[in-house]
């Protein structure tokens, strides 16, 4: 990795590493929710004859606990500083730098994600493995695909939040957009329940037409080898395609925003 990108990434990492207490507090909360959701899903599975929508016990435990861990890594609920900087006008300084702010933010975000993987992802995953036992993938390649899928999930989340930040150029108050995003990304990403529980047409529509399942359900399905390696590859390809599309949209929206800034003076 060239030097600038490395510096940006490590800055993102170190920035979050200073919030030690918040990290502990967050991991604790993830753990409590892990127990809560895991027991609920296991109880549902017991009532329904052992599985929920084709997920068995270890798959459900993995879905819940790694899901709690991914929550902080993907961070779809935290907004980027960009929104605040657009609102305050500080964004002009970002646009004046020789590096495209899209990439500046992206590398910083990857640094943040790395830190979260080492802390907020590992802690619930370990606790879940000890308390409930998680699913053990059959193929070694699954781990690599899971890493790829998680990276794609981080990027999808980043692009969406970058777009929300950019929307502050046109909207006076982006709280509405933010609330809408939190709602949709929670429900349609499979955070509350596995998407396979939904009626077939609805879950298919979400997978095909929106990037949201790629935020959580995608990596988790890859990890529990749902539908085998073939499906895992399909999930990854879909995610990567969404990353490409969303990055292009970000570039386009940013160009419009810059033009608006230059023409109207902000």
């Amino acid at each position, binding site marked *: 990795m060239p030097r600038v990108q490395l510096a940006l990434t490590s800055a993102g990492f170190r920035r979050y590493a200073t*919030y030690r*207490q*918040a990290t502990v*507090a*967050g991991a*604790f*909360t993830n*753990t*409590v*929710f892990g*127990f*809560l*959701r895991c*027991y*609920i*899903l*296991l*109880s*549902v*599975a*017991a*009532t*329904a*004859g052992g599985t*929920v*929508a084709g997920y068995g016990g270890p798959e459900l435990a993995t879905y819940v606990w790694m899901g709690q861990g991914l929550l902080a890594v993907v961070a779809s609920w935290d907004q980027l500083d960009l929104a605040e900087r657009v609102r305050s006008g500080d964004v002009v300084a970002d646009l004046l730098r020789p590096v495209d702010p899209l990439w500046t933010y992206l590398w910083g975000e990857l640094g943040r994600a790395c830190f979260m993987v080492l802390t907020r992802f590992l802690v619930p995953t370990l606790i879940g493995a000890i308390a409930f036992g998680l699913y053990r993938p059959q193929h070694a390649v699954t781990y690599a695909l899971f890493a790829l899928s998680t990276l794609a999930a981080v990027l999808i989340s980043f692009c969406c939040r970058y777009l929300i930040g950019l929307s502050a150029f046109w909207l006076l*108050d982006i*709280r*509405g957009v933010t*609330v*809408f995003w939190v*709602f949709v990304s*929670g*429900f349609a990403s499979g955070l*509350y*329940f596995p998407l396979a*529980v*939904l009626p077939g047409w609805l879950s298919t529509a979400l997978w095909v037409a929106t990037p949201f399942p790629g935020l959580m359900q995608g990596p988790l399905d890859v990890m529990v080898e749902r539908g085998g390696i073939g499906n895992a590859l399909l999930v990854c390809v879909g995610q990567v395609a969404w990353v490409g599309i969303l990055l292009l949209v970000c570039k386009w929206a940013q160009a419009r925003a810059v033009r608006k800034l230059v023409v109207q003076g902000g």
Partner: protein
Amino acid sequence: MAEPGRLTIYTRVLRAQIRSQAQYRLSFAFELFASMLTNALDIATVFVLFSVGGGLGGFGAREVLLMAALSAASFATADLTMGNVDNLRVYIRRGVFDSLLLRPLSALGQLMAVTFALRRVGRAVLGLTLYTVALCVADIDWDIPRLLFAIVVPFTGAAFFCSLFVAGATVAFWWIESGEVANAFTYGGRDFTSYPSNMYGGWFRDLFTLGLGFGFVAYFPALALTGQPDPLGVPGWLHWCSPLVTLAAMCLAAVFWRFGVRHYRSTGS
């Protein structure tokens, strides 16, 4: 002129707060709508999971609805009145808490008034409506004690959650970045109480249901109203004890709060 009552003063402070918020009308409307949607989604989640096996913890749809609705009504009412007291940490960090302590009113009362968020009224209304519906469809052998209990219990549940909100906020006097820990018990408590407690297992179930008292928000009251025995074997008279448990929680929270205020270290100059 007669001296105005304490309540009137708080009402005035509250009205001022609402007037300030009303200046941002569009996002207010949006947030009102979105918060109702989230609440509806929480209930919908319960029923999505219900539909998978045709039951939750051995209870039928009417009992599950009663528990989920009671939890939603309690939490949303608490959230409306006290849900924002965890902003205390922001107030402490910015030093604004000082100015609350300098006025001749209770600091907690003022904190409630200045963090009051009217947009949450939608959720509370939705929760209470749902609870009424759940009461109507539930299989309840109505008598006077049950009627009184049914009226009281969403409010004792709300008071229970209020105590949690206050206790969680109080931690900020020592640990400013503690917000997420409190969430585990407030929002976690809401999720916990939305489902029958017998769905959980091991020490986790005992700790949350009996140790922390979450069973007394929705699970035990629903059993008391429908007259069903507890699959966990908790004796029937205990199902009626929600008001007492809430009272204990409120006392603990109040003591903790006073202790916290004494340990307030006003930061900054």
